[in-house]
């Protein structure tokens, strides 16, 4: 008996000594913070936080990758304990909720298989690789319902999962389970950083929009009469809806499927309607702003790219400061777009809202003259965004350009934007076919010019200006000389009096795909002019960028490593907008500003600045139905306008905005498209 006790005791003693020694010898340094956090967590290993067990959750919290209240099982108690360990206070966290990204259940989409007996989406996916022709849509078997630990998901009346936001904790179990990735964890902040992926159901308009606005989403809010929800959704990706709703050439509408059977949905004017509603209500939508991170970001240029970037960085909790060379913010929106298209008061209201998010502004300061990227970094800015735009213009390259009365198009509009007097004579010729040319032409007409002629070297079909601008200019009596190019400017006593142009013919297509105009000899014509405005392109000013060591492309724009991240060759320096893409439309700059804000946020959090491989790029091919069937024709809401008589000598806004009734009616027309599905008649 005694030997037995001694023996077992001995084994125990040896074992404990051995373990004791081992724990010293094989001691693995565990971060004391991680240790403390691990102990504060309940240790249930439930996985509701989205991490593999409590210890990995603790690691993530200690590293700052998860919030102190990440543990759902521990609830408020654990969160407070963890926050104490980390020395932070719990602020209100923007909750994540699951959102279903499919609008058409199997019954309404093109069903390919019927699963006899299969009751699990994942199994059906493995066996049949999908329930529908669409490779992404919901399979409707409800596996998400069965896995949700909080019973927050039900299959709704239409056969699609519905998430009860009050019960959803954002644990992500359904996201991990759904084999189609149609359920996503989401919040305003996450959505604002989201890049559309190929394995995601998106409508053609939405993925065409350079800003990536959830167009079908906001249109359906308008349809339901929830205009504030619509504008909140728009502002998740575009902080300038008042402006965009007025000036955007809406590439989205080109892709609208309704456009294949009748006129496309008036997407842009619906956006303007929602934005006007917000301004008219006088109550600004204030999105969630993350707790301050204490990181400072310098934004060079207060145009659409810079404003957008600043807006999103402020939302992510960083402290952006905009450095603007001009006296006021807005960039080309203020100095390039005339009052009658975008009233300054409206632009001011929009910019005020962005500044109100916590953006600091320094005007009259320019990179190169007053600061350098180096000096900004020394001042403690953790990252820099370059959104310097395209402010340079080019001469015509013909004799007589030095004559008084010859004006560069951008300069002319910038001077107007600055409030300077820009008198023009009775006869004005505008050279060029872009929106700047038409802005200049319509401005001259409003300033009292009797005869405004636009001279463009290709035909109307090739004209880059928006159709609506051309139509309006025609209504206002602007004369168009297509297939004509100036050859000589002539004057008396140094003052411009005449312009000679030559007729052109369209030859072989050039590298831009447009047919190259070739002059027809002997067709020179002389017309009398008082002013000539050259609007033949805008280009980034890049000298000061080169001085700062920013790499430039062969088109003399900023060279970015990846267009989707906006990262430049310099560490912590990002760029976007016209300075990168060359002169383009505002919504492109807004998209670039948002993508750069996403990258800067990743960079400041010490994460890898990259985009997912599945992110949709400009050239990504996606599924599309071959033909649109069972969709009736319908009439598009026409924007009410000022009469031509009311526009003369006035800079009042021409477009008056859709009425509520018109907007609701227009929203009804939307087909609510997905990848392959759309609303059809007669189901």
């Amino acid at each position, binding site marked *: 008996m005694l*030997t037995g006790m001694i023996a077992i005791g001995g084994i125990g003693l040896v074992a404990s000594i051995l373990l004791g020694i081992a724990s010293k010898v*094989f001691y693995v340094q565990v971060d004391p913070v991680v240790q403390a956090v691990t102990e504060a967590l309940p240790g249930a290993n439930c996985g509701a936080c989205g991490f593999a067990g409590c210890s990995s959750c603790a690691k993530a919290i200690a590293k700052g990758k998860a919030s102190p209240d990440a543990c759902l099982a521990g609830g408020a108690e654990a969160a407070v304990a963890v926050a104490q360990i980390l020395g932070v206070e719990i602020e209100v966290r923007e909750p994540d909720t699951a959102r279903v990204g499919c609008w058409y259940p199997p019954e309404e989409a093109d069903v390919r298989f019927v699963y006899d007996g*299969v009751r699990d989406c994942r199994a059906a996916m493995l066996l049949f690789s999908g329930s529908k022709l669409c490779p992404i849509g919901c399979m409707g078997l409800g596996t998400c319902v069965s896995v949700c630990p909080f019973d927050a998901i039900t299959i709704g009346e239409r056969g699609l999962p519905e998430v009860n936001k009050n019960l959803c904790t954002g644990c992500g179990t359904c996201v991990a389970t759904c084999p189609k990735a149609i359920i996503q964890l989401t919040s305003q902040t996450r959505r604002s950083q989201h890049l559309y992926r190929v394995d995601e159901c998106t409508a053609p308009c939405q993925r065409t929009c350079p800003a990536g606005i959830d167009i079908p989403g906001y249109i359906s809010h308008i349809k339901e009469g929830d205009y504030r929800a619509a504008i909140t959704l728009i502002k998740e990706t575009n902080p300038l809806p008042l402006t965009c709703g007025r000036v955007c050439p809406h590439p989205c509408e080109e892709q609208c499927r309704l456009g294949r059977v009748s006129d496309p949905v008036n997407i842009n004017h619906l956006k303007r309607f929602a934005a006007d509603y917000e301004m008219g209500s006088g109550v600004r939508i204030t999105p969630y702003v993350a707790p301050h991170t204490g990181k400072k970001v310098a934004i060079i240029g207060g145009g659409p790219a810079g404003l957008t970037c600043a807006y999103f960085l402020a939302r992510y909790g960083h402290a952006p400061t905009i450095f603007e060379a001009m006296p006021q913010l807005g960039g080309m929106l203020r100095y390039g777009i005339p009052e009658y298209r975008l009233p300054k008061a409206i632009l001011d209201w929009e910019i005020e809202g962005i500044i109100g998010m916590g953006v600091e502004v320094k005007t009259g300061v320019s990179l190169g003259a007053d600061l350098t990227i180096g000096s900004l970094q020394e001042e403690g800015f953790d990252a820099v965004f370059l959104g310097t735009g395209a402010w340079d213009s080019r001469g015509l390259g013909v004799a007589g350009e030095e004559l008084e009365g010859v004006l560069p198009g951008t300069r002319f509009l910038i001077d107007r934007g600055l409030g300077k007097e820009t008198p023009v004579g009775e006869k004005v010729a505008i050279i060029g076919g872009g929106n700047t040319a038409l802005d200049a032409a319509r401005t001259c007409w409003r300033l009292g010019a009797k005869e405004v002629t636009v001279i463009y070297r290709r035909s109307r079909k090739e004209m880059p200006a928006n159709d609506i601008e051309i139509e309006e200019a025609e209504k206002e009596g602007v004369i168009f000389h297509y297939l004509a190019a100036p050859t000589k400017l002539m004057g008396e006593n140094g003052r411009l009096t005449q312009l000679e142009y030559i007729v052109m013919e369209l030859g072989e297509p050039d590298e831009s795909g447009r047919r190259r105009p070739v002059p027809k000899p002997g067709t020179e014509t002389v017309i009398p002019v008082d002013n000539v405005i050259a609007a033949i392109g805008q280009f980034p000013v890049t000298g000061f960028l080169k001085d700062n060591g920013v790499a430039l492309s062969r088109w003399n724009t900023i060279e970015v490593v990846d267009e989707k991240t906006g990262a430049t060759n310099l560490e912590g320096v990002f760029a976007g907008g016209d300075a990168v893409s060359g002169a383009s439309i505002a919504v492109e700059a807004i998209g670039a500003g948002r993508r750069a804000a996403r990258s800067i946020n990743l960079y400041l959090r010490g994460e890898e600045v990259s985009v997912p491989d599945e992110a949709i790029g400009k050239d990504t091919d996606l599924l599309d139905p071959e033909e649109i069937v069972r969709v009736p024709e319908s009439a598009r809401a026409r924007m009410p306008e000022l009469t031509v008589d009311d526009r003369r000598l006035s800079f009042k806004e021409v477009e008056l905005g859709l009425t509520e009734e018109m907007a609701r009616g227009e929203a009804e027309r939307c087909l609510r498209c997905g990848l392959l599905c759309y609303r059809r008649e007669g189901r």
Partner: protein
Amino acid sequence: MGEFLLLMVSAILVNNILLLRFLGNCPFLGVSRKMDTATGMGLAVIFVMTLAGMITWLVYRYLLVPLSLEYLRTIAFILVIATLVQFVEMVIQKAAPPLYEALGIYLPLITTNCAVLGVAIINVDERYDLITAIFFSFASACGFALALVLMAGLRERFALVAIPKAFEGTAIGLVTAGLIALAFSGFAGLV
């Protein structure tokens, strides 16, 4: 060599520790829902069981037998196995962090696994020599892993079939386990 082959077939198929000796049923039902956890657990068991078989044999032969304390083998083995698992966990955490990440969460589960204890006791009862004991432990563990993986494969397929409400979950799991056991008993007489 032939003897080892027979021992192997016997341990894996004919006398499968899980299906015919009914040891270690807790992890058999607990971690067989997913294939990757099942393989993780299977590997951890192979690792620990082989080591435990060796150590317990040494403890028995050179400690308990000389002191005529054979009747204390159960408690002694439990102590030894528990210590061993803890020790191994510490060593691999230090020496091979990736291995620790892979096996880590399963190791503590084995501390109190009766299959490990069972193999240690069988080794002694059958009076195997050291090499045979190690080999038998390893083969038994392989049998354990095989049964676990088979079960996980079957259970993953349950998703495909319509199971009557009353049979859902553990019920169908137990029925299946029983049927596999029955099938394995068909190997009886092979050795």
